[in-house]
Protein backbone atom coordinates (compact mmCIF):
# COMPACT_ATOMS: atom_id res chain seq x y z
CA UNK A 1 0.00 0.00 0.00
CA UNK A 2 1.49 3.32 -1.09
CA UNK A 3 1.17 6.27 1.29
CA UNK A 4 0.94 9.87 0.08
CA UNK A 5 3.41 12.39 1.49
CA UNK A 6 0.55 14.19 3.24
CA UNK A 7 -0.41 10.94 4.96
CA UNK A 8 3.16 10.61 6.21
CA UNK A 9 2.95 14.15 7.65
CA UNK A 10 -0.43 13.34 9.23
CA UNK A 11 0.86 10.14 10.88
CA UNK A 12 3.98 11.94 12.15
CA UNK A 13 1.76 14.61 13.66
CA UNK A 14 -0.51 12.01 15.31
CA UNK A 15 2.61 10.36 16.78
CA UNK A 16 4.00 13.75 17.90
CA UNK A 17 7.16 13.32 15.84
CA UNK A 18 8.72 16.26 14.05
CA UNK A 19 10.26 15.05 10.78
CA UNK A 20 12.67 17.00 8.60
CA UNK A 21 10.84 17.98 5.42
CA UNK A 22 13.70 16.55 3.33
CA UNK A 23 13.20 13.12 4.95
CA UNK A 24 9.50 12.82 4.09
CA UNK A 25 10.17 11.09 0.76
CA UNK A 26 12.34 8.44 2.45
CA UNK A 27 9.70 7.79 5.09
CA UNK A 28 7.08 7.60 2.36
CA UNK A 29 9.03 4.87 0.55
CA UNK A 30 10.01 2.90 3.63
CA UNK A 31 6.62 3.04 5.36
CA UNK A 32 4.88 2.06 2.11
CA UNK A 33 7.20 -0.94 1.75
CA UNK A 34 6.46 -2.01 5.34
CA UNK A 35 2.72 -1.71 4.73
CA UNK A 36 3.12 -3.83 1.57
CA UNK A 37 4.80 -6.49 3.70
CA UNK A 38 2.02 -6.33 6.26
CA UNK A 39 -0.73 -6.47 3.63
CA UNK A 40 -0.04 -10.20 3.15
CA UNK A 41 -2.28 -10.61 6.20
CA UNK A 42 -5.36 -9.40 4.35
CA UNK A 43 -5.35 -12.56 2.19
CA UNK A 44 -5.70 -14.85 5.22
CA UNK A 45 -9.11 -16.20 6.18
CA UNK A 46 -9.42 -15.51 9.89
CA UNK A 47 -13.17 -15.79 10.27
CA UNK A 48 -14.07 -17.27 13.64
CA UNK A 49 -10.50 -16.97 14.98
CA UNK A 50 -10.31 -15.32 18.36
CA UNK A 51 -7.59 -12.59 18.49
CA UNK A 52 -4.72 -13.67 20.73
CA UNK A 53 -3.61 -11.01 23.20
CA UNK A 54 -1.49 -13.20 25.46
CA UNK A 55 0.39 -16.36 24.48
CA UNK A 56 -0.97 -18.24 27.50
CA UNK A 57 -4.38 -16.59 27.25
CA UNK A 58 -3.80 -15.20 30.73
CA UNK A 59 -6.18 -12.64 32.14
CA UNK A 60 -5.33 -9.51 34.09
CA UNK A 61 -4.33 -10.37 37.62
CA UNK A 62 -6.08 -8.44 40.39
CA UNK A 63 -4.65 -7.44 43.75
CA UNK A 64 -6.00 -5.91 46.93
CA UNK A 65 -6.54 -2.15 46.62
CA UNK A 66 -3.93 -1.13 49.14
CA UNK A 67 -1.04 1.32 48.94
CA UNK A 68 2.21 -0.54 48.26
CA UNK A 69 4.45 2.24 46.97
CA UNK A 70 5.97 5.07 48.95
CA UNK A 71 5.97 8.59 47.62
CA UNK A 72 9.38 9.21 45.99
CA UNK A 73 8.64 12.47 44.21
CA UNK A 74 11.95 14.14 44.94
CA UNK A 75 13.90 11.05 43.95
CA UNK A 76 12.05 10.77 40.64
CA UNK A 77 12.19 14.50 39.90
CA UNK A 78 15.98 14.56 40.16
CA UNK A 79 16.17 13.22 36.60
CA UNK A 80 13.53 15.54 35.12
CA UNK A 81 14.55 18.17 32.54
CA UNK A 82 12.84 21.03 34.47
CA UNK A 83 11.02 21.09 37.81
CA UNK A 84 9.90 23.75 40.26
CA UNK A 85 8.49 23.24 43.76
CA UNK A 86 7.58 19.63 43.07
CA UNK A 87 6.03 20.32 39.67
CA UNK A 88 7.25 19.36 36.20
CA UNK A 89 7.75 22.48 34.10
CA UNK A 90 6.52 22.75 30.51
CA UNK A 91 5.93 25.84 28.33
CA UNK A 92 2.82 27.84 29.26
CA UNK A 93 -0.37 25.96 28.31
CA UNK A 94 -3.07 28.41 29.46
CA UNK A 95 -2.71 32.08 28.47
Amino acid sequence: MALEQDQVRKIASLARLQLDENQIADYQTNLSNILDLVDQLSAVDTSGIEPMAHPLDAVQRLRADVVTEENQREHFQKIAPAVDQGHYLVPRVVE
Partner: protein
Amino acid sequence: MHNKTIAEISRDLASGEYSSTELTTDLLNRVKQLDGDINSFITVTDEQALAQAKAADERRAAGNADAWTGVPIAHKDIFCTNGVLTTCGSKMLSNFEAPYDATVVSKFNDAGAVSLGKLNMDEFAMGSSNESSFFGPVANPWDKERVPGGSSGGSAAAVAARLVPGATATDTGGSIRQPAALCGVTGLKPTYGRISRWGMIAYASSLDQAGTITRTAEDAALMMNVMAGFDPKDSTSVDREVPDYTSSLDNSIEGMTIGLPKEYFRDDLSADMQQQVRNAIAEYEKMGAKVKEISLPNTHLAIPAYYVIAPSECSANLSRMDGVRFGYRCEDPKDVEDLYCRSRGEGFGNEVKRRIMIGSYALSAGFYDAYYKKAQQVRRLIRNDFTNAFNDVDVIMGPVTPTPAFKRGEKTSDPVEMYLEDIFTIALNLAGLPGMSVPCGQVNNLPVGLQLIGNFFDEGRLLNAAHKFQQATDWHLKTPADI
Protein backbone atom coordinates in the same frame (compact mmCIF):
# COMPACT_ATOMS: atom_id res chain seq x y z
CA MET B 1 40.94 -16.17 33.49
CA HIS B 2 38.84 -14.52 30.77
CA ASN B 3 38.28 -17.85 28.98
CA LYS B 4 36.50 -19.35 31.96
CA THR B 5 32.78 -20.08 31.93
CA ILE B 6 30.46 -19.00 34.71
CA ALA B 7 30.41 -22.57 36.07
CA GLU B 8 34.23 -22.66 36.10
CA ILE B 9 34.50 -19.22 37.71
CA SER B 10 32.04 -20.25 40.40
CA ARG B 11 34.20 -23.29 41.21
CA ASP B 12 37.50 -21.36 41.01
CA LEU B 13 36.25 -18.64 43.35
CA ALA B 14 35.11 -21.31 45.79
CA SER B 15 38.47 -23.09 45.73
CA GLY B 16 40.41 -19.82 46.03
CA GLU B 17 42.09 -20.15 42.60
CA TYR B 18 41.66 -16.37 42.29
CA SER B 19 39.52 -13.72 43.94
CA SER B 20 36.56 -11.86 42.47
CA THR B 21 38.64 -8.68 42.70
CA GLU B 22 41.44 -10.23 40.62
CA LEU B 23 39.00 -11.55 38.03
CA THR B 24 37.00 -8.31 37.86
CA THR B 25 40.20 -6.26 37.47
CA ASP B 26 41.37 -8.58 34.69
CA LEU B 27 38.08 -8.32 32.78
CA LEU B 28 37.88 -4.54 33.20
CA ASN B 29 41.39 -4.30 31.73
CA ARG B 30 40.32 -6.44 28.79
CA VAL B 31 37.36 -4.17 28.20
CA LYS B 32 39.75 -1.19 28.13
CA GLN B 33 42.12 -2.95 25.72
CA LEU B 34 39.67 -4.58 23.34
CA ASP B 35 36.34 -2.79 23.44
CA GLY B 36 37.53 0.32 21.62
CA ASP B 37 37.23 -1.69 18.38
CA ILE B 38 34.16 -3.69 19.37
CA ASN B 39 32.04 -1.05 21.14
CA SER B 40 30.02 -3.62 23.07
CA PHE B 41 29.77 -1.50 26.23
CA ILE B 42 27.89 1.80 26.47
CA THR B 43 28.81 2.28 30.14
CA VAL B 44 31.55 0.54 32.11
CA THR B 45 30.88 0.75 35.85
CA ASP B 46 34.47 0.18 37.05
CA GLU B 47 34.07 1.57 40.54
CA GLN B 48 30.81 -0.18 41.37
CA ALA B 49 32.14 -3.43 39.89
CA LEU B 50 35.27 -3.34 42.03
CA ALA B 51 33.21 -2.44 45.11
CA GLN B 52 30.87 -5.37 44.42
CA ALA B 53 33.87 -7.68 43.89
CA LYS B 54 35.47 -6.55 47.16
CA ALA B 55 32.20 -7.08 49.04
CA ALA B 56 31.91 -10.55 47.44
CA ASP B 57 35.46 -11.47 48.49
CA GLU B 58 34.67 -10.32 52.04
CA ARG B 59 31.51 -12.42 52.15
CA ARG B 60 33.50 -15.40 50.96
CA ALA B 61 36.18 -14.82 53.60
CA ALA B 62 33.40 -14.76 56.21
CA GLY B 63 32.10 -18.10 54.92
CA ASN B 64 28.88 -16.72 53.41
CA ALA B 65 29.45 -17.36 49.71
CA ASP B 66 26.97 -18.90 47.25
CA ALA B 67 27.32 -20.07 43.65
CA TRP B 68 27.03 -16.53 42.27
CA THR B 69 29.10 -14.66 44.85
CA GLY B 70 31.62 -12.54 42.95
CA VAL B 71 30.80 -13.85 39.45
CA PRO B 72 30.97 -11.06 36.82
CA ILE B 73 28.25 -10.39 34.26
CA ALA B 74 26.98 -7.35 32.35
CA HIS B 75 23.50 -6.11 31.55
CA LYS B 76 21.95 -5.12 28.26
CA ASP B 77 21.32 -1.38 28.50
CA ILE B 78 17.56 -1.98 28.38
CA PHE B 79 17.50 -2.99 32.07
CA CYS B 80 17.12 -0.12 34.53
CA THR B 81 20.04 0.19 36.94
CA ASN B 82 19.60 2.49 39.91
CA GLY B 83 21.76 5.62 39.58
CA VAL B 84 23.54 4.23 36.51
CA LEU B 85 23.02 5.48 32.96
CA THR B 86 20.31 3.40 31.22
CA THR B 87 20.10 4.49 27.59
CA CYS B 88 18.31 1.74 25.67
CA GLY B 89 20.71 2.69 22.86
CA SER B 90 18.89 5.98 22.30
CA LYS B 91 19.67 9.69 22.33
CA MET B 92 16.25 9.99 24.01
CA LEU B 93 17.63 8.33 27.16
CA SER B 94 21.27 9.39 26.73
CA ASN B 95 21.06 11.29 30.06
CA PHE B 96 18.73 8.88 31.88
CA GLU B 97 20.04 7.55 35.17
CA ALA B 98 17.33 5.10 36.18
CA PRO B 99 15.84 5.80 39.63
CA TYR B 100 15.44 2.08 40.42
CA ASP B 101 16.74 -1.40 39.57
CA ALA B 102 14.93 -3.77 37.21
CA THR B 103 13.86 -7.01 38.92
CA VAL B 104 16.44 -8.92 36.85
CA VAL B 105 19.18 -6.53 38.02
CA SER B 106 18.07 -6.79 41.67
CA LYS B 107 18.11 -10.57 41.44
CA PHE B 108 21.73 -10.64 40.24
CA ASN B 109 22.73 -8.06 42.86
CA ASP B 110 21.02 -10.12 45.57
CA ALA B 111 22.78 -13.26 44.32
CA GLY B 112 26.11 -11.48 44.80
CA ALA B 113 27.07 -11.13 41.12
CA VAL B 114 29.36 -8.33 39.94
CA SER B 115 28.09 -6.12 37.10
CA LEU B 116 30.78 -4.72 34.79
CA GLY B 117 28.39 -2.30 33.11
CA LYS B 118 25.78 -1.78 30.43
CA LEU B 119 25.87 -3.28 26.96
CA ASN B 120 25.20 -1.73 23.58
CA MET B 121 22.02 -2.55 21.65
CA ASP B 122 19.85 -1.40 18.78
CA GLU B 123 17.86 1.68 19.74
CA PHE B 124 14.92 0.58 21.94
CA ALA B 125 15.71 -3.01 20.82
CA MET B 126 14.53 -2.28 17.29
CA GLY B 127 16.98 -3.80 14.87
CA SER B 128 18.83 -6.93 13.80
CA SER B 129 22.35 -5.56 13.31
CA ASN B 130 23.07 -3.20 16.22
CA GLU B 131 23.49 -0.41 13.65
CA SER B 132 20.59 1.66 15.01
CA SER B 133 22.31 2.41 18.34
CA PHE B 134 22.85 6.11 19.10
CA PHE B 135 26.16 5.00 20.64
CA GLY B 136 27.52 3.59 17.39
CA PRO B 137 27.49 0.14 15.84
CA VAL B 138 28.99 -2.92 17.55
CA ALA B 139 31.61 -4.93 15.65
CA ASN B 140 31.34 -8.70 15.38
CA PRO B 141 34.49 -10.08 17.10
CA TRP B 142 34.77 -12.75 14.34
CA ASP B 143 35.09 -10.09 11.63
CA LYS B 144 34.98 -6.48 12.68
CA GLU B 145 33.58 -5.34 9.31
CA ARG B 146 30.50 -7.40 10.08
CA VAL B 147 27.51 -6.87 12.35
CA PRO B 148 27.06 -8.85 15.58
CA GLY B 149 23.30 -9.09 15.00
CA GLY B 150 20.73 -7.34 17.14
CA SER B 151 19.17 -6.07 19.09
CA SER B 152 21.31 -7.67 21.86
CA GLY B 153 24.46 -7.15 19.75
CA GLY B 154 26.53 -5.77 22.64
CA SER B 155 25.64 -8.75 24.86
CA ALA B 156 26.61 -11.28 22.17
CA ALA B 157 29.80 -9.46 21.10
CA ALA B 158 31.00 -8.98 24.70
CA VAL B 159 30.57 -12.69 25.48
CA ALA B 160 32.15 -13.73 22.15
CA ALA B 161 35.14 -11.43 22.81
CA ARG B 162 35.55 -12.95 26.29
CA LEU B 163 35.03 -9.58 27.95
CA VAL B 164 32.42 -11.09 30.27
CA PRO B 165 31.33 -14.72 30.74
CA GLY B 166 27.60 -14.00 30.59
CA ALA B 167 25.21 -11.19 29.82
CA THR B 168 21.54 -10.43 30.19
CA ALA B 169 19.64 -9.77 26.96
CA THR B 170 16.10 -9.46 25.65
CA ASP B 171 14.27 -11.03 22.72
CA THR B 172 11.16 -9.54 21.10
CA GLY B 173 11.55 -11.04 17.60
CA GLY B 174 14.92 -12.80 17.72
CA SER B 175 17.06 -10.28 19.58
CA ILE B 176 18.81 -12.92 21.71
CA ARG B 177 18.98 -15.87 19.30
CA GLN B 178 20.07 -14.01 16.16
CA PRO B 179 23.07 -12.15 17.69
CA ALA B 180 24.04 -15.31 19.61
CA ALA B 181 24.08 -17.19 16.28
CA LEU B 182 26.08 -14.51 14.46
CA CYS B 183 28.65 -14.26 17.28
CA GLY B 184 29.03 -18.00 17.98
CA VAL B 185 27.66 -17.94 21.52
CA THR B 186 24.71 -19.55 23.32
CA GLY B 187 21.44 -17.63 23.63
CA LEU B 188 18.26 -18.52 25.52
CA LYS B 189 14.91 -16.79 25.10
CA PRO B 190 12.57 -18.22 27.76
CA THR B 191 8.79 -18.64 27.67
CA TYR B 192 6.85 -15.37 27.72
CA GLY B 193 6.18 -14.54 31.39
CA ARG B 194 8.99 -16.73 32.80
CA ILE B 195 11.19 -13.74 33.74
CA SER B 196 9.98 -10.41 35.07
CA ARG B 197 9.79 -7.53 32.62
CA TRP B 198 9.68 -4.98 35.46
CA GLY B 199 12.32 -2.32 34.86
CA MET B 200 13.04 -3.67 31.38
CA ILE B 201 12.29 -0.77 29.05
CA ALA B 202 9.23 -1.84 27.07
CA TYR B 203 9.24 -2.19 23.29
CA ALA B 204 6.38 -4.61 22.50
CA SER B 205 4.98 -5.76 25.82
CA SER B 206 3.17 -8.89 24.62
CA LEU B 207 6.39 -10.18 23.00
CA ASP B 208 9.33 -8.84 25.07
CA GLN B 209 11.14 -11.42 27.17
CA ALA B 210 14.44 -11.31 29.05
CA GLY B 211 16.99 -14.07 28.65
CA THR B 212 20.65 -14.93 28.58
CA ILE B 213 23.74 -14.88 26.39
CA THR B 214 26.56 -17.14 27.58
CA ARG B 215 29.24 -19.42 26.17
CA THR B 216 27.55 -22.65 27.29
CA ALA B 217 24.11 -24.08 28.00
CA GLU B 218 25.27 -24.90 31.52
CA ASP B 219 25.93 -21.18 32.12
CA ALA B 220 22.53 -20.30 30.69
CA ALA B 221 20.99 -22.70 33.24
CA LEU B 222 22.92 -20.99 36.04
CA MET B 223 21.69 -17.56 34.91
CA MET B 224 18.12 -18.85 34.58
CA ASN B 225 18.27 -20.08 38.17
CA VAL B 226 18.77 -16.44 39.19
CA MET B 227 16.44 -14.72 36.72
CA ALA B 228 13.33 -16.92 36.40
CA GLY B 229 10.31 -16.57 38.63
CA PHE B 230 7.09 -14.78 39.39
CA ASP B 231 7.14 -11.04 40.05
CA PRO B 232 3.99 -9.32 41.32
CA LYS B 233 5.30 -6.07 39.81
CA ASP B 234 4.95 -7.49 36.26
CA SER B 235 1.28 -8.11 35.47
CA THR B 236 2.18 -10.61 32.73
CA SER B 237 4.65 -12.56 34.86
CA VAL B 238 3.58 -16.18 35.31
CA ASP B 239 3.19 -17.64 38.81
CA ARG B 240 4.65 -21.06 38.34
CA GLU B 241 7.31 -23.08 40.10
CA VAL B 242 10.91 -22.59 38.92
CA PRO B 243 12.93 -25.79 38.58
CA ASP B 244 16.69 -25.99 39.17
CA TYR B 245 17.70 -25.70 35.52
CA THR B 246 21.07 -27.35 36.14
CA SER B 247 19.46 -30.55 37.47
CA SER B 248 18.25 -31.78 34.07
CA LEU B 249 21.32 -30.82 31.99
CA ASP B 250 22.76 -34.33 31.90
CA ASN B 251 19.53 -36.23 31.21
CA SER B 252 19.75 -38.70 28.35
CA ILE B 253 18.18 -37.60 25.10
CA GLU B 254 17.77 -41.15 23.87
CA GLY B 255 14.34 -41.35 22.28
CA MET B 256 13.78 -37.59 22.17
CA THR B 257 11.78 -36.63 19.06
CA ILE B 258 13.06 -33.67 17.06
CA GLY B 259 10.70 -31.93 14.66
CA LEU B 260 12.19 -30.34 11.55
CA PRO B 261 9.76 -27.80 10.05
CA LYS B 262 9.92 -28.12 6.28
CA GLU B 263 9.25 -24.37 6.01
CA TYR B 264 12.63 -23.70 7.69
CA PHE B 265 14.66 -25.61 5.09
CA ARG B 266 13.61 -23.96 1.85
CA ASP B 267 15.53 -22.00 -0.80
CA ASP B 268 15.94 -18.92 1.38
CA LEU B 269 18.42 -20.98 3.42
CA SER B 270 21.69 -21.41 1.51
CA ALA B 271 23.10 -24.89 0.92
CA ASP B 272 26.07 -24.09 3.20
CA MET B 273 23.81 -23.09 6.07
CA GLN B 274 21.53 -26.12 5.52
CA GLN B 275 24.56 -28.39 5.71
CA GLN B 276 25.71 -27.05 9.08
CA VAL B 277 22.24 -27.38 10.58
CA ARG B 278 21.77 -30.89 9.16
CA ASN B 279 25.16 -31.94 10.54
CA ALA B 280 23.99 -30.84 13.98
CA ILE B 281 20.75 -32.82 13.63
CA ALA B 282 22.84 -35.87 12.62
CA GLU B 283 24.81 -35.42 15.84
CA TYR B 284 21.54 -35.67 17.78
CA GLU B 285 20.59 -38.82 15.88
CA LYS B 286 23.93 -40.34 16.94
CA MET B 287 22.90 -39.61 20.53
CA GLY B 288 19.69 -41.55 20.05
CA ALA B 289 17.21 -38.82 19.11
CA LYS B 290 14.57 -39.45 16.48
CA VAL B 291 13.84 -36.98 13.69
CA LYS B 292 10.46 -36.24 12.18
CA GLU B 293 9.54 -33.77 9.46
CA ILE B 294 6.77 -31.41 10.53
CA SER B 295 4.95 -28.45 9.02
CA LEU B 296 4.35 -24.99 10.47
CA PRO B 297 2.14 -23.81 7.61
CA ASN B 298 1.69 -20.20 8.76
CA THR B 299 5.42 -19.47 9.07
CA HIS B 300 5.34 -16.98 6.17
CA LEU B 301 2.80 -14.85 8.07
CA ALA B 302 4.97 -14.35 11.14
CA ILE B 303 6.90 -11.33 9.86
CA PRO B 304 3.79 -9.51 8.55
CA ALA B 305 1.91 -10.15 11.83
CA TYR B 306 4.91 -9.06 13.88
CA TYR B 307 5.24 -5.77 11.97
CA VAL B 308 1.70 -4.86 12.98
CA ILE B 309 1.77 -6.04 16.59
CA ALA B 310 5.24 -4.86 17.62
CA PRO B 311 4.96 -1.34 16.09
CA SER B 312 1.45 -0.92 17.52
CA GLU B 313 2.63 -1.78 21.02
CA CYS B 314 5.78 0.32 20.63
CA SER B 315 3.81 3.37 19.52
CA ALA B 316 1.89 3.15 22.81
CA ASN B 317 4.90 2.27 25.01
CA LEU B 318 7.16 4.98 23.61
CA SER B 319 4.57 7.70 24.11
CA ARG B 320 6.00 8.06 27.62
CA MET B 321 9.15 9.54 26.07
CA ASP B 322 7.81 13.07 25.81
CA GLY B 323 10.55 15.31 27.20
CA VAL B 324 8.61 16.12 30.38
CA ARG B 325 9.57 13.80 33.23
CA PHE B 326 12.87 12.27 32.16
CA GLY B 327 15.17 11.87 29.18
CA TYR B 328 15.96 14.20 26.31
CA ARG B 329 14.25 17.58 25.96
CA CYS B 330 14.66 19.87 22.94
CA GLU B 331 16.09 23.40 23.31
CA ASP B 332 13.68 26.34 23.79
CA PRO B 333 10.31 24.74 23.03
CA LYS B 334 7.84 27.41 22.00
CA ASP B 335 4.80 25.55 23.34
CA VAL B 336 3.88 22.11 24.70
CA GLU B 337 3.16 20.70 21.24
CA ASP B 338 6.58 21.84 20.06
CA LEU B 339 8.15 20.34 23.20
CA TYR B 340 6.65 16.91 22.44
CA CYS B 341 7.23 16.92 18.68
CA ARG B 342 10.80 18.20 18.68
CA SER B 343 11.95 16.24 21.76
CA ARG B 344 10.68 13.06 20.10
CA GLY B 345 11.75 14.06 16.58
CA GLU B 346 15.30 14.85 17.75
CA GLY B 347 15.52 12.14 20.42
CA PHE B 348 14.47 9.08 18.38
CA GLY B 349 16.42 7.61 15.46
CA ASN B 350 14.91 6.73 12.08
CA GLU B 351 14.04 3.08 12.73
CA VAL B 352 12.26 3.92 15.98
CA LYS B 353 10.33 6.70 14.24
CA ARG B 354 9.33 4.34 11.43
CA ARG B 355 7.96 1.77 13.86
CA ILE B 356 6.12 4.36 15.95
CA MET B 357 4.52 5.68 12.76
CA ILE B 358 3.51 2.24 11.49
CA GLY B 359 1.96 1.57 14.89
CA SER B 360 0.18 4.91 15.03
CA TYR B 361 -1.21 4.26 11.56
CA ALA B 362 -2.32 0.68 12.34
CA LEU B 363 -4.09 1.81 15.50
CA SER B 364 -5.67 4.94 14.03
CA ALA B 365 -9.44 5.25 13.73
CA GLY B 366 -10.94 2.91 11.15
CA PHE B 367 -7.85 0.72 10.69
CA TYR B 368 -7.85 -1.25 13.95
CA ASP B 369 -9.76 -4.29 12.64
CA ALA B 370 -7.82 -4.49 9.38
CA TYR B 371 -4.43 -4.39 11.06
CA TYR B 372 -4.18 -5.04 14.80
CA LYS B 373 -7.15 -7.38 15.21
CA LYS B 374 -6.21 -9.25 12.03
CA ALA B 375 -2.61 -9.63 13.21
CA GLN B 376 -3.76 -10.94 16.60
CA GLN B 377 -5.93 -13.52 14.84
CA VAL B 378 -3.03 -14.62 12.65
CA ARG B 379 -0.94 -14.79 15.80
CA ARG B 380 -3.27 -17.45 17.15
CA LEU B 381 -2.94 -19.44 13.90
CA ILE B 382 0.85 -19.30 14.31
CA ARG B 383 0.66 -20.47 17.90
CA ASN B 384 -1.72 -23.28 16.91
CA ASP B 385 0.87 -24.48 14.37
CA PHE B 386 3.33 -24.97 17.21
CA THR B 387 0.76 -26.46 19.59
CA ASN B 388 -0.14 -29.06 16.95
CA ALA B 389 3.52 -29.81 16.26
CA PHE B 390 4.27 -30.39 19.94
CA ASN B 391 1.65 -33.15 20.01
CA ASP B 392 4.14 -35.21 18.00
CA VAL B 393 7.60 -33.93 18.87
CA ASP B 394 9.57 -32.91 21.98
CA VAL B 395 11.75 -30.20 20.47
CA ILE B 396 11.73 -28.35 17.15
CA MET B 397 15.04 -27.61 15.48
CA GLY B 398 16.16 -25.52 12.54
CA PRO B 399 18.39 -22.62 11.54
CA VAL B 400 18.45 -19.33 13.48
CA THR B 401 19.34 -17.07 10.55
CA PRO B 402 19.28 -17.35 6.75
CA THR B 403 22.97 -16.35 6.48
CA PRO B 404 26.02 -15.87 8.72
CA ALA B 405 26.94 -12.33 9.89
CA PHE B 406 26.56 -9.77 7.10
CA LYS B 407 28.63 -6.62 6.55
CA ARG B 408 27.82 -3.31 8.18
CA GLY B 409 25.72 -1.15 5.87
CA GLU B 410 24.64 -4.12 3.76
CA LYS B 411 20.99 -4.05 4.84
CA THR B 412 20.46 -0.52 6.14
CA SER B 413 18.96 1.03 3.01
CA ASP B 414 15.77 -1.06 3.00
CA PRO B 415 14.16 -1.76 6.39
CA VAL B 416 12.13 -4.66 4.98
CA GLU B 417 15.31 -6.49 3.97
CA MET B 418 16.56 -6.16 7.54
CA TYR B 419 13.21 -7.46 8.86
CA LEU B 420 13.56 -10.66 6.81
CA GLU B 421 16.71 -11.46 8.81
CA ASP B 422 14.34 -12.62 11.61
CA ILE B 423 12.35 -15.00 9.40
CA PHE B 424 13.17 -18.10 11.52
CA THR B 425 13.05 -16.48 14.95
CA ILE B 426 10.01 -14.22 15.02
CA ALA B 427 7.19 -16.83 15.04
CA LEU B 428 8.34 -18.13 18.37
CA ASN B 429 7.86 -14.71 20.03
CA LEU B 430 4.35 -14.46 18.62
CA ALA B 431 3.60 -17.91 20.05
CA GLY B 432 5.31 -17.07 23.39
CA LEU B 433 7.50 -20.18 23.28
CA PRO B 434 11.07 -20.63 24.56
CA GLY B 435 13.98 -20.98 22.13
CA MET B 436 17.73 -21.24 22.03
CA SER B 437 20.59 -20.60 19.66
CA VAL B 438 23.57 -22.91 19.97
CA PRO B 439 26.80 -22.68 17.92
CA CYS B 440 26.72 -25.62 15.47
CA GLY B 441 29.22 -24.92 12.69
CA GLN B 442 30.88 -22.31 10.51
CA VAL B 443 30.44 -20.96 7.01
CA ASN B 444 33.37 -18.89 5.63
CA ASN B 445 34.92 -18.86 9.11
CA LEU B 446 31.78 -17.26 10.55
CA PRO B 447 29.65 -18.97 13.21
CA VAL B 448 26.31 -20.61 12.44
CA GLY B 449 23.61 -21.21 15.03
CA LEU B 450 21.23 -24.12 15.55
CA GLN B 451 17.81 -23.10 16.82
CA LEU B 452 16.04 -25.21 19.42
CA ILE B 453 12.38 -24.46 20.08
CA GLY B 454 10.59 -25.92 23.08
CA ASN B 455 7.05 -26.19 24.35
CA PHE B 456 5.81 -23.68 26.96
CA PHE B 457 8.01 -23.70 30.10
CA ASP B 458 10.21 -26.44 28.65
CA GLU B 459 13.44 -24.45 29.11
CA GLY B 460 14.89 -27.35 31.10
CA ARG B 461 14.59 -29.69 28.13
CA LEU B 462 16.09 -27.13 25.74
CA LEU B 463 19.05 -26.58 28.07
CA ASN B 464 19.44 -30.34 28.40
CA ALA B 465 19.47 -30.81 24.60
CA ALA B 466 21.90 -27.90 24.14
CA HIS B 467 24.19 -29.14 26.90
CA LYS B 468 24.35 -32.65 25.44
CA PHE B 469 25.23 -31.18 22.05
CA GLN B 470 28.00 -29.12 23.64
CA GLN B 471 29.38 -32.21 25.35
CA ALA B 472 29.58 -33.94 21.98
CA THR B 473 30.89 -31.02 19.88
CA ASP B 474 33.28 -28.11 20.35
CA TRP B 475 31.68 -25.34 18.26
CA HIS B 476 30.87 -23.38 21.43
CA LEU B 477 34.58 -23.42 22.38
CA LYS B 478 35.75 -21.76 19.15
CA THR B 479 37.12 -18.28 19.71
CA PRO B 480 37.50 -15.39 17.25
CA ALA B 481 41.06 -15.18 15.84
CA ASP B 482 42.45 -12.07 17.53
CA ILE B 483 40.61 -12.47 20.84
